[in-house]
């Protein structure tokens, strides 16, 4: 395989956007107890 050697005067500039994984759905307790 060919390895390309980037000259020391060459430059690279890039940007990457990072997002967290989606939050797991919040479980809603549907079995609410009635108040006394």
């Amino acid at each position: 395989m060919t390895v390309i050697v980037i000259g020391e005067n060459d430059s690279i500039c890039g940007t990457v956007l990072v997002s967290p994984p989606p939050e797991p759905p919040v479980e809603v307790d549907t079995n609410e107890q009635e108040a006394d």
Partner: protein
Amino acid sequence: MAVQYLASLRSTRMDAVTTACGATAWLQVWDGALPATPATAPAGTLLASMALSNPVAPAASSGVLTIDVTPVPTDSGANASGTPTFCRIATSETGTTTGIVQMSAGVGSGDISFSAAITSGGTVTLTSLTITDGSS
């Protein structure tokens, strides 16, 4: 003095990167120390890989190679959590010795600047990447 090349020859040098990438190339994101060469197996962890276009870029202009980000290279399920320290353009998604070009990376620093550290399962999106031949 530094060596100077014609603009057309500078572009030819950059286009050689596109040729070396072939039909399938990825931008690999790693943590750990920068290896000695792009083909040296890293000691760190592969955090994410984004598939690049085929070809990876249109013809270079005035020695500037602009990586194609349409469609947007994205990894929607990062492999591991960590802070990026270097990236590689490589000819395989996860290969450790298939790099063509490598560059420093960091959160808000480095050749490739990340907006935040990577969380396993998160989304990583390449928004821009240019390589500029410095022999002008």
